[in-house]
Each structure stands twice: as C-alpha cells, then as structure tokens.
C-alpha cells in the first residue's frame, strides 16, 4: 500500500503547491481526469477478485474522496484569495469630493418663503388668498379706497403712472395691495376673510425704499368683527410668525384713508449689535397699519356699512422678512446676487407647516 500512500502524499503536495486555479485543475486532471492516476487505480478495481476489491476498494475510494475534498478546499481558498486580490486592486479614493447636490444648491427667495409662512398661518384661521393685477385703475387704487382726488394722502403714495389712453384715462401701478380688497368685496358675498400678498410699486428709491416691494394685507368683512378681534389676530400672527411665545404690542391711533378708526401697531423689541429680538427690550418697532374698513369703502363696494363691518391690515413682506431673518438692507432683495441669495435663501424642501414649524 506504499504506492497508495506515496501517491496520496504526492497529490496532497501538488494540491498544496498549486498557486492558481489553472495549476490546481492540472493536478485534478492528473489525478481524477480520464487518464488520471486515481482514475487509473479505480479502473483496476473491475479486474480484481471480490476479496481483493473488498480490501483495495475502500483504500482507493478513500484516496479519491480525500483528494477530491482537498481539491475543493484548495479551490475555495484560491478563489477567495483571488477575490481578495481583485478587490484590493479595485480600491478607489473615496475621499474624492462630490459636487454639491442640486437640492443643496437650490434656494427659495426669502419673499417666497415668507409668503408661504404667512399663508400657512392665515389659512389655519380660515383665510383664503386673493390676488390682483399690478396694473390698476385710479378708481381701484385710490377713489374706491376713499382717497379724495387731489388729497395730500394720495400724493404720499408716489405713484407710477402709465400714459393716458385715448379716453384720457391713465392706469397706474398699484401703490398697495388694497385694490384687491375692493375687487374681492365687489365679487364675493360676505362673510369673507382673505389675505392679499403681492407686488406693489412707488416711485421712491433710497437706502430703505425700493421702487418695487411686497405687501400683504388682510381683510375681514362680516356682521360683527371688531377691533378686539383684529388685536387678537395680529397678536397671534406675530407670535406664530416670529416663532416666539409672547409679543408685546402697542396700538396707536393713526390715519389711513380707507380705515376708520385707523391704528398703527408697534412691537416691543430689543436691538443689540444689529440683532432684533422680540418679546424683550425697550424699543418699539412699527410693524403694520390697520383699522376698521371705512364706511365709504364698504359703501363703494355696494354694501351697507350699517349692516356690514370688518377690518383690514397691511404690512411689508420684505420688512417682516428682514425683521425675522435679519437682512440689514432692502435693496439686495432685488439684486439677484448669488452670494446673498445663497446666504439668506431657503433650501428647496424647507416647507413651512404648522405641524412641523414654520422654519427649521
């Protein structure tokens, strides 16, 4: 049996020595192929006597099984080593930087973001959103809103006019969003609650004024809403919008042609190092104008001011954006400087909601 054990030793050594799958296959063919050494031995079994076969059979078959297993083991080891080697060679430098994703680069302008915030708050209070055109008539921008022709209050608006048409009427760029109040009252039967965000224009340009800016106003018309309700709405709005637990507000009698009584509203704040904080401090900051809709305005819309009443308020969207988010100047809002937009703009999916909060 020395032959068999010598053969086994030889094959085991050859298997161990095989450095790759091809070499191993050669060993397998030499042992177990058609003309292989073990195959040759197996063939001899047929010519043996039953006794001889009984003795040699298990030995040869055992040798075949052991060599087969050794081959399998070696093949697995070689495969694994080859894979390891391949993977080693496939290394990449994962520190290479990637471009910033589009959603990380894109920005929403603060004005759009603030309009979304306002809408979210007021929609919850049952307000819908009304809009109108930027080009208006004198009637809707002034006359219907109780601005007498030639009155100084009209002059304070620094109106942009178009050239007169063939009938001598000249259109204008709305100086406030209030014409939409008139359109709304004339087309929707009260009770009504709307907010009106939009672009407005005045021919005025300096550090704090731009010829185009954005306003939002609110309008409520029904048979019982009064200044007390307005106070509540404005206080709730300010808390919700500025995301503070408490705001101190000061209501001052004032004058607007389209409201009577008219009120201006200041909020308490502190100003330190260019930063404004609400709900603390000693300064008052004017934030909006409001009042009960003037009986003449209600009348001009075909309603009876003894039956219907309501209130309106208006404020600058750009201004409250500056107050909340800290932009120091108004002019860059409209300059489309990428540096400003990237800094003060909002990420595309920063959607203000009441459930998740207005801002991140």
């Amino acid at each position: 049996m020395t032959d068999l054990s010598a053969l086994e030793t030889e094959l085991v050594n050859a298997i161990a020595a095989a450095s790759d799958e091809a070499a191993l296959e050669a060993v397998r063919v030499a042992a177990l192929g058609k003309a292989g050494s073990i195959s040759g031995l197996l063939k001899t079994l047929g010519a043996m006597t039953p006794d001889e076969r009984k003795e040699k059979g298990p030995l040869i078959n055992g040798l075949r099984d052991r060599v087969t297993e050794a081959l399998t083991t070696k093949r697995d080891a070689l495969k694994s080593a080859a894979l390891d080697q391949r993977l080693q060679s496939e290394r990449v430098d994962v520190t290479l930087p990637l471009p910033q994703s589009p959603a990380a680069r894109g920005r929403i302008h603060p004005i759009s973001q603030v309009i979304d915030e306002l809408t979210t708050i007021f929609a919850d209070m049952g307000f819908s959103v009304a809009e109108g055109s930027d080009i208006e008539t004198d009637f809707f921008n002034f006359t219907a809103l109780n601005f007498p022709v030639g009155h100084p209050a009209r002059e304070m608006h620094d109106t942009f006019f178009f050239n007169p048409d063939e009938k001598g009427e000249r259109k204008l760029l709305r100086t406030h969003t209030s014409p939409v109040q008139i359109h709304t009252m004339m087309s929707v039967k009260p009770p009504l609650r709307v907010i009106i965000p939009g672009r407005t224009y005045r021919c005025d340009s300096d550090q704090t004024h731009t010829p185009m800016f954005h306003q939002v106003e609110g309008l409520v018309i029904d048979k019982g809403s009064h200044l007390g309700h307005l106070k509540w709405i404005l206080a709730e709005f300010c808390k919700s919008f500025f995301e503070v637990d408490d705001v101190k507000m000061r209501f001052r009698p004032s004058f607007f042609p389209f409201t009577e009584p008219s009120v201006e509203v200041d909020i308490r704040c502190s100003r330190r190092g260019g930063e404004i904080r609400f709900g603390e401090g000693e300064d008052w900051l004017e934030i909006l104008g409001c009042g009960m809709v003037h009986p003449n305005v209600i009348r001009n819309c075909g309603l009876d001011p003894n039956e219907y009443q309501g209130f309106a308020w208006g404020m600058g969207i750009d201004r409250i954006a500056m107050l909340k988010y800290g932009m120091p100047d108004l002019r860059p809002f409209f300059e489309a400087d990428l540096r400003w937009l990237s800094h003060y703009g909002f990420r595309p999916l920063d959607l203000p909601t009441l459930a998740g909060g207005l801002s991140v």
Partner: protein
Amino acid sequence: MKFTLSWLKEHLDTAASLDQIVEALTRVGLEVESVEDPAKVLAPYITAHVISAEQHPNADRLRVCMVDTGDGKPVQVVCGAPNARAGMKSVFSPPGTFIPGKNITITVGVVRGVESAGMLCSAFELGLSEDHEGIIDLPADAPVGVRYVDYAGVDDPVIDVAITPNRSDALGVYGIARDLAAAGLGSLKRHDLPPIKGNGACPVEVKLNFASDQKNLAPAFALRLVRGVKNGPSPDWMQRRLKAIGLRPINTLVDITNYITFDRGRPLHVFDAKKVKGNLVVRHAKDGDEILALDGKTYKPDPSVVVICDDNGVESIAGIMGGEHSGCDEHTTDVLIESALWDPLNIARSGRALGINTDARYRFERGVDPAFCVPGLDLATKMVLDLCGGEASEARVAGEVPAPEKIISFPWSEVKRLTGLSLLVPEMKAILTELGFWVSGNDKDVKVAVPSWRPDVEDKADLVEEIMRIAGLDQVEAVPFPREIAAVPKPVLTLIQKRTRLAKRALATRGLVEAVTWSFISKAEAEVFGGGKPELALANPIASDLSDMRPSLLPGLIKAAQRNADRGFHDVALFEVGQVFAGDKPNEQTIAATSLRRGLAAAKGLGRHWQGAGALDVFEAKADALALLEALGIPTAGLQIVQGGPSWFHPGRSGTLQFGPKMIVGAFGEIHPRILDALDAKGPIIACEITLDALPPPKARPTKMKPKLVLSEFQPVSRDFAFIVEKNVAAADILKAAQAGERNLISDMTVFDVYEGPGVPEGKISVAIAVTLQPTDKTLTDAEIEAVSTRIIAEVQKKTGATLRA
C-alpha cells in the same frame, strides 16, 4: 410738527411730566418722533469769567486764558476764538463734556506745549445755532459758575410729533393741548381775545375776482392795516421758541406770522403797506404773471394758481408764499396783515405745480379752521400792537367765512360695534365735549355737532375713532377670532397659487436659485423680448432702464447672471417665478416660471469637476422644463416638443413646448447670441420659460382613488432598431412612427444612440431606438415579435424615409 414744552404749557395747565406728556401724545395718535431735552445734553456747561487772556507762546492765533468757573480755582484753557479776551463772561465745558456741535468729548490736553483743561464754547459747539464766529459772549452781569441752560433758559425740551394728514387741527400747539386735555393730562387754557375794533376803515380794498362757481377758491379774505409800527428783532422768548423748532427769526412782523402759524395752525401773511400799490385783487394767475417770492426764486404761476395782486402785479402766491417786493423788513412802518381762507385742493395742486413747500401750504392743504380766520387776524393785530406799537385800522373782510353745520346722528352703540370697547355714555360724552364736539340728546342715539376745526370728521366711524383714541386703544381687549365653522380648515389655495408655489420648489430642487427682479425693464430690453407696447410704458419711470413692464422674466435674469459673472461668479443657475405683462388688462398679466443657466452650471453640479464639468447645452434647459412640468403633475403624454422657439432663442437650439399648436405653454433653448449682445451679456446662456397660466388644469375626478394597478404576468421583451435617416429628421418623428407601427404592445421606447460618421452616409445620421414590448395575455412567440418588428420598421421607413442600419 415741533413745539417746546413751555410753549405747550401756554395752552395746557398741567402738572404732568415730560415723559407722561410724551406717552400721552403717542397714545392719542400724535406720534412722538423725537424728544430733544437740551437740559440733559447741556447740563455740564457752566458760565465762567475769563480772568486773563494772554498770547499763546507758540501760536499766533491762540490765547492762553485763565478762567474762573465759580469755585475760586481758575483753570487754564487754550482758546482759538478771535473774541476771547480778559474780563469777558462766557460758557465753559470741563473735561469729560460731550460737545454736540463737534461730536467729541473734551479731555485735558496739551495744545502746542501749553496745558488746556477744558474749553470755552461757541453757540455752535453747544448745538444751539450755526454761529461759530467766536465763543459765547455773555453780558457783563452774568453770574459765574451756574448752569448755562438755567441762565440762558435754553432748557426747554423740544417735542417732534408726526401729524397724520387728517389732523390739521393738531398743526398748532393749541390743538395739541386740546387733545392732551381731553386725554386727562390737564386743562386747556382759555384765551379770550376781545375783537379788536381798530380805528377807521382799512384803506386798502380787497376784491375776490372769481366766477360764482369758483368762490370756494378764496371763500374769505380778512385784512387790516397797522400804521406806525417799529419792526426790529422779535423778543427773546419768541426767537427762542422759533429757533427751538428750527425756524430762523427774521423780524418781529414776520416772526409773529410764523409764531401764530405754529401756535394756532393759522397761517398769516404781512405786506409792507407802503410797497403795496392800490387795492388788492385776488384772482387766477394770468399768462405773463411772474413773482419773485420770499425764497428768492422767481415763479410763473399757471392759471389755476390763485394769486394776490396790486397795481404793481402779483404780490403773493395765495396760501403758499409771499412776494419779496412787498415783504416786511426793519424799515416797515405800515403793515397789512392778511388772514384768509383758501381751497385745500387748489393749494395742494398749486404747491405741487410750483414745487413750493411752506408751513402755510402744509396747513392750508390739510384744512385750517375757518372760524378762526378773523380771530386769527385779531390775535396777530394784538401781537403787532403789543410788540411793534402802531395803530390798527378796522378789519376788512372780503367774501364770507363759511360756517358749515356738520351734525352726525350717533348711536353710542357704534363704539362697541366697531371696537368692542364697552364705555359708559358719560365717559364717551365727556371725551367728545372736551374735544370741542357738541352733543345733544340723552338717548341711546344723540346728535353730535362737529367743531369747525375738524374737517376730517364726517361719519359715525370718525366719532368712534375720537372716543377710542382718547379712551385709549389699550383698553380694547383682544378677542379670539373663531373660525367661521368649527372644523378642520379647508384648503384655500387656487390652482395657480398652488402651481406657483410648487414651481419654485421644483426648480430649486434642480439647483436653481430663486431671484426676484424688477417688474420693469428698459424699453430696448422689452422690445427685444416681444414687449415695449405703449400701454406698458411708465409715464414717470424712476430710471430709464426701469421704464417698461416686462414681457418676459428673461431680460432681468440675463442681466442678473451677467452681474454675477462680472463679480467673478461665472457659473450661474437662477430662476424666477413671477408676473409678466402682455398688455395692461388684468387677463394680460400671467405668471411665468423661468430658469436660466450660464457657465458650468448644470443640475448635476457647478463648475469643473473630476467627474466631468457641468457644461450646458439645450438639453439641460429642456430637462428643467420637463422637470417643472412633471413636478406640477402636468401629464406629459400629450406634450409636443417642436423644433424652434421665440425669436430670442438660438433658431437651431431651441424648442417650443405645446399641447397642440394653439396651446403653447413655453419654450426652451440657448439664448440667441444677438440678444445677448443687445443686453451686454456674455453667453452661452440656456433657459426655459413656462407660462403657468397656460398649463392645462388637472382632470376633475370624483374620488381620490388612483386607477387600478394592472400588472402583467408575462416578461417584457426589448428589441433594438438602428435607423439611418436624413439629418433633419426629428427623433420625435421616428418614435411617433414606431409607435404607430404597434399600437398595443409597446410599453416604452427610448433613443439609446445617435451617431454620424464613418459607416453612415454623408448627410445622414443613425438613430438607434430600443422598443419594449409588454405582452398582456400570453408570452410572445418569436414569430409574433418578428411581425411586430417588421411593422415598426415599415412604419418608420414610410414616415421618415429611414432605412434599417445593416
């Protein structure tokens, strides 16, 4: 409107502090803009005696003074004032004092080698006047070592209030005092002024020369002559008050008119009677009228302006400004005092037309108290007689002082209805009465007569405001505003509002940054983008490059991109969603969503990158457009993309987005190089524009259920076809033809290769498409697939002249 505390106290008997008064003013609607309390700023300044003033050893223009500040220990001060001399009394500021006129704080210093421990001050340095000719020269009898503010009486705080345009009654200190008295700050002083009789008729006659329907332009004109006056500087107390509110004292007669303007809101004018020739005629200005006004400028009033003339011509612009020729100076001995009424609207218009802003115009255009027209003349006469002497004539009043009786029926319940405030009737009645209203009746409904000085009060709501502002707005309690129905709020946004919001978010997720640019652009830019219509051109643009309403968002964005490039940021990805104007009618204003990319600013990344630069081509713009439409949920199945776009795009590198030729929704492409040149911008720039209003609305569905999901059990098969076609055949036409070849089985098609070059004949291209077939009821046999392929090839050949590539 400025006034001083002591001036207020002429009319208001009050024990209230300055702070209380300031707080109350704002509370009642007379918003305090600023309070200047000179006593605070000037407290450290003391009166001093200059013991000696010697020549400075090292400087010709300086003197070294020993100054006695009252404590017996003279201080050494270096002084550069030419009038510094031994023995004079002046004002001294010790080290540590803030100098308002110079915005510095005094320290002990060495001036040219000599120590100086303080400063002798000019009135300019104290912020008291423009006079910096020399240090303050106090009278010889001035005490030494007392606070200068106390000595000079310049400790009167100046309060500046913003008066809203409706409150002409508060353009006089007296009216302000009336509001404060009503608000409980004290009591209003009565100034009973017996009418001044005068001696003899006023020799100058006045004629109001207006047609009967224009008498409102000059309802009344009161005039009086005072003979034998002596017109010098006005008394100190008057000068001090005028200076405190920023007026320059001129002479007593002029100062009296200014004083009464601010004291009572009653503008007046004085003529030097000796320079007035003949009688006065008040009339419309005529062609050729010209006047050198008191501001030293010559005006040519248009015929709607009312002027006051004598035989010399125009002497005064009614209610706005007097003329230089008949003005009063120190030589005036006879003075004509005018107190008149003018039409507010005409004064406002005239003032605007002439470009003159005066305190008189300001008051007349807001409405002065007609009832005070003649008493105002009497008050002025009395002051002239008191301060300048002389003898007054009788008053002459031309026209008639209107006395409108305005009576408002007022149910007290209006206050609660409009403000929610519950006030007692006596309280409300007291407020109205204090303000000068006359309340009659004891019922729930009363009649309220409006005083002559309140032209703004016309309606019940005005009375509510009066009661509310005096009672205090802080008394109005916030009342929760309930929802109209107790339910979860319904969605409120309209389709276009939702699409506008979503469009912004969708474009931003593609790496685009939202800009908000001006709604107006230059005419040239508007014209290039199909705009520039005359009805969209502003008559009074703020600048020539902001003159026309924009027909497109592109000009604004292109210029913005160039500005960023000029700053060194060349890779620009911007968008705007906003209004554009095709005309001046409301339905001609639409919302456009426009994106723009420049430089290396593809959606996949900005700038150069090891994975490949973010270079741009027309397909990046197309991708922006499609991404937007898809985000908005617009079904793109019916969307056609037609070669070519509006004239501002590159003719070969642009496309139009449409749902049929009559439903164009937008375009995309590379901006035409000629357009970029016209806008001084460098390209290439690619862009897409979509009109949100033009997009089809979603189909109305009865429920929110999505259509049933149908999945096939059979595997899809894919077949590739490479067609060789003429270069001008559109890929869309090949796909359309392929689709026509097999109506049912095709589930997807894509162009996976476009090739031209060796192997493809000159002038032709190879377009390879992959077609996916999705069987629904059985696995396709090879023969069936072959049949489909044959039909597809035949159809493409027929429609496009293609041949199958070998």
